């Protein structure tokens, strides 16, 4: 038991994690590509046409994974941030800052695909629907995180300040979501939802699930690659980086 | 504590205060690590850094009374007057800090030491911008603090004689 604990802490040093991440990254990338190919096959050739929404519903195969990832990444980011604040580990901050850009991109994609779905279904590019609005606010939170990160020069201080911001954000996300929902029902009532199709065929569900897993793999692969860059950049004055470059 | 510029004297002092994080090692006060007893430790601590911690648009007395209040003290006007006189800024207690010279501001900041009841003084370059009489007076004040069982950690570029009290010189090198 004791040896296992030591084992894990070994990987929490940036140097060891750099090597580990380098070894794992290609596998996750490969998994992402394979799963995405399978998911795309199901989304276009196996899943049947939706009775209500015709072929337009196929947007869910990218919209749902993107929205889910944007929310999960924020949670994971906040978890890393909290871990970093509590135990003062360097790697945690690096992981949080490696996750943030991908999370922001998924939030952005969720908005783009959401409004591409909304145009034919609602007849408008943008509707102040509770989900879309919350997603927009989530994007703002990501942008705030990225802006704070980039405007503090000392990376250690930036990591800690961003960690506080991420934790404040994660406490606020449910409150914001609830308040937006409240606001939405007060003002216009529920509208047709992209994800609440009553008759979802099992192949549709399977396709969506595979796409969600594929997006997870993509996120992990991209984050590992990015955190490797960050580690190299931050640890540039250490011996092992000099050896790694040579 | 001595050492060349940029060698980390101020950083070390800030670590002693618990302001800056410590990369490795531990700082103990009364046998307990300082981060484990932060509130009790701060009661014993008086830190004067490079910055004077004086608000320009408040009077000298208001400034001193405020920092004293932060550690739960309320010095009366007469006491403040006496301390200011001791530090060579007599009769300035009702003046706005804005109207003082740099040297006078430094003296006002240092006069906090006489008003504080902390046992540990952490001073960053206290002798800078002081004339000879000021240095003498401050050295005597530190000596008196030490004879009463207090402790002072300070950085300085110059050798200052504080009498017969044993002092340790720590020289930092890069």
């Amino acid at each position, binding site marked *: 038991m004791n040896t296992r604990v030591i084992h894990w802490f070994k990987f929490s040093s940036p140097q060891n994690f750099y090597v580990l991440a380098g070894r794992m990254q290609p596998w996750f990338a490969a998994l992402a590509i394979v799963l995405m190919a399978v998911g795309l096959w199901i989304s276009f050739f196996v899943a049947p046409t939706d009775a209500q929404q015709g*072929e337009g519903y196929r947007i869910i195969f990218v919209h749902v994974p993107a929205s889910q990832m944007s929310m999960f990444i924020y949670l994971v980011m906040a978890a890393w941030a909290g871990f970093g604040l509590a135990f003062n580990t360097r790697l945690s901050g690096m992981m949080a800052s490696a996750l943030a850009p991908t999370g922001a991109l998924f939030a952005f994609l969720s908005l783009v*695909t959401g409004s591409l779905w909304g145009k034919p279904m609602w007849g408008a590019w943008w509707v102040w629907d509770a989900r879309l609005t919350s997603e927009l606010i989530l994007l703002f939170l990501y942008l705030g995180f990225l802006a704070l990160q980039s405007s503090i020069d000392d990376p250690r201080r930036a990591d800690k300040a961003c960690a506080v911001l991420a934790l404040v954000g994660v406490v606020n996300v449910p409150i914001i979501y609830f308040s937006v929902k409240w606001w939405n029902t007060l003002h216009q009532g529920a509208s047709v939802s992209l994800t609440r199709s009553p008759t979802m065929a099992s192949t549709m569900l399977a396709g969506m699930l595979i796409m969600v897993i594929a997006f997870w793999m993509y996120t992990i692969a991209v984050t590992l690659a990015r955190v490797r860059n960050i580690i190299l950049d931050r640890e540039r004055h250490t011996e092992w980086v000099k050896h790694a470059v040579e | 504590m001595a050492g060349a510029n940029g060698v980390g004297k101020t950083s070390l002092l800030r670590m002693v205060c618990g302001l800056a994080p410590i990369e490795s090692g531990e700082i103990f006060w009364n046998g307990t690590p300082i981060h484990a007893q932060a509130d009790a430790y701060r009661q014993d601590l008086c830190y004067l850094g490079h910055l004077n911690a004086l608000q320009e648009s408040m009077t000298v007395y208001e400034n001193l009374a405020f920092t004293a209040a932060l550690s739960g003290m309320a010095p009366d006007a007469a006491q403040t007057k006496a301390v200011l006189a001791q530090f060579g800024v007599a009769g300035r207690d009702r003046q706005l800090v804005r109207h003082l010279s740099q040297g006078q501001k430094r003296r006002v900041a240092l006069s906090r030491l006489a008003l504080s009841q902390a046992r540990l003084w952490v001073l960053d370059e206290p002798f800078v911008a002081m004339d000879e009489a000021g240095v003498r007076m401050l050295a005597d004040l530190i000596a008196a603090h030490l004879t009463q069982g207090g402790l002072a950690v300070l950085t300085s570029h110059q050798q200052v004689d504080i009498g017969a009290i044993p002092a340790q010189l720590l020289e930092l090198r890069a």
Partner: protein
Amino acid sequence: MQWNSVSEFFAMGGYAFYVWGSFGATALVMLIETLLIRRQRQEVLASLRNELLSEGASS
């Protein structure tokens, strides 16, 4: 399979722009992100090599 011809597949039952737009945007963003990370890596490595070279020259 529900597609009778290639053109029908691309037409997406009249939703071509929206469906292909969504998938296209997603693919584009993922591609750009991957390329950006690759470039970032090359930049970091280049600056590290530069540093090493200048250190080697000065010592």
